[in-house]
């Protein structure tokens, strides 16, 4: 009886829609007319749709660069903060606050920071004589711009790492130091193995988040994914198909491909994780 809200919610908001979208993915469904079964036509069209491949590669590009970049920056910051620094709370707040900024406000702000003419970043580059990329106006620089922006919001991961570092046994460091291990060796053989569950967690979450990357790209390109489709990410193209072209069946097919990719990749990460993730004792 107590479970009823969960069961109801699960049925109404997850199981039914999930099954329905699987069914629609095999239908021609132009929204205003009822769905008509067309077999695998949507999937076959998708595999011949160049924009589909473009959106897939855009998303892969973003995931491959933004996730490790965020992890590295967050990990370095956490290591520094773990050096018994004074004013830890102040630093922690400074690094964490950007990550709670509403995505829309953050995107609007960054769109202007990255503005080729008036933006802070190019003004800075100009003053030291570096070349000025066109950022969101240039197809070659639009994705790097979004990746740079993503590093601004890594505060959450930093906190996760910082908490994890508290659990690394101190005496191991002392023993290693007595044995003459240098900083790099200590990092490689003590810190990273002990932190691997946390690193693994953020890797999985980062990947799942990157696969669904949407809001920033939508806001910064007015929902177009431009210039020349350079920021047309998978979720953005899915959204366009559904709510701009009203190709609901096609969009559902995309959603299921997304789900399968996420599922397979997550399973792959978990399967291989035994090799590089160390869970101290039976934790």
């Amino acid at each position, binding site marked *: 009886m107590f479970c009823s809200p969960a069961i109801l919610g699960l049925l109404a908001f997850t199981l039914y829609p999930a099954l329905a979208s699987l069914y629609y993915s095999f239908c021609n469904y132009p929204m205003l007319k009822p769905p008509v079964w067309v077999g695998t036509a949507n999937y076959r069209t998708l595999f011949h749709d160049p924009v589909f491949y473009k959106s897939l590669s855009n998303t892969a590009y973003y995931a491959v660069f933004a996730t490790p970049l965020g992890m590295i920056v967050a990990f370095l910051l956490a290591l520094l903060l773990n050096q018994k620094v004074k004013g830890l709370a102040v630093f922690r707040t400074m*690094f964490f606050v950007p990550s709670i900024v509403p995505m829309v406000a953050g995107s609007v702000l960054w769109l202007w920071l990255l503005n080729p003419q008036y933006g802070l970043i190019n003004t800075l580059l100009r003053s030291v004589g570096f070349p000025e990329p066109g950022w969101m106006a240039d197809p070659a620089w639009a994705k790097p711009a979004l990746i740079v922006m993503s590093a601004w919001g890594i505060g959450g991961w930093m906190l996760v790492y910082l908490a994890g570092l508290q659990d690394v046994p101190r005496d191991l460091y*002392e023993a290693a130091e007595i044995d003459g291990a240098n900083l790099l060796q200590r990092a490689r053989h003590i810190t990273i193995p002990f932190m691997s569950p946390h690193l693994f967690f953020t890797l999985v979450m980062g990947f799942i988040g990157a696969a669904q990357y949407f809001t920033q790209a939508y806001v910064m390109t007015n929902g177009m994914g431009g210039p020349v489709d350079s920021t047309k990410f998978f979720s953005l193209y899915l959204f366009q198909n559904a709510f701009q072209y009203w190709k609901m069946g096609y969009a559902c097919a995309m*959603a299921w491909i997304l789900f399968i990719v996420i599922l397979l990749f997550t399973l792959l990460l978990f399967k291989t994780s035994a090799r590089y993730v160390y869970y101290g004792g039976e934790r």
Partner: protein
Amino acid sequence: MSKSDGSDMSDKSDVSAANNKGAVTAPRLRRALAYIVLITGGLLMLVPFLWMLSRSVELPSEVASPGLGLIPKHFRLANYADALKLMKYPQLYLYNTLKVTALTVVGGLFSSSLVAFAFARLRAPGRDLLFILVISTIMLPAQVTMIPMFMIFRGLGWYDTLLPLIVPAFFGSAFSIFLIRQFFLTIPKDLEEAARIDGCSTFRIYWQIFLPLSKPVLATVAFFSFTAHWNDFMTPLIYLNSIEKRTLALALATFQDVWGVDIVSLMAASTLVLLPVLLMFFIGQRYIVQGNVMSGSKG
């Protein structure tokens, strides 16, 4: 030492404090370097905010002038009034956003904690299987359920109302259920048994024992849910059509193309949208930080 400032991070301070004293202190140079990197990095994180604030009070004619623009040449608060005027219905957007966030936070907290209580304490056949099923829905990307949900809400005549933004929260969220359940599991069984012997009903055990004991985790979930709904963009974008029904995030996003290059108003408006979230953060900093760590390390 980190423990003394960050008392909220961990409760094993006495153990590692003893360990720390024995630790070899890092060389001075390395510490100085750490401070330099931290201060530079911290300032870099704050510079975008500073730039936004500075632009929001600048004269519109001055934004193209040379210089980094971190310090405004003028201080024109009227920009904020202009921005509000350009937004057309700022008070409606605020009202819509407040309505959605308040209802979703309260509704979500109540139903998620109730379900978490059931999963943590009540015995029922298939309970754990059901729990796994609920948790596994976290894995399902929103894009999969998005279109059928849209059809359902449209069929109910809820398109262009705030209901599709509010109602789903009342059925609990898998993530909140998970966090609260983990906390409930740590509450001693004896407490519950004692209450039951005294004739306490199950609902009263939940309401008068579990909820008051779980304030930290409830606050964490509440803040998470507050920021998630305050910032949500995709759901309002899908369901809201009329100008006056929009939420703040949606209004800000849709106005940016209307305003074109009016940086000044845009930055003033962004500041206004951001302010409540920052305020909430500073009020609830402890819980947000804790929640972030909880969701990350125990996930």
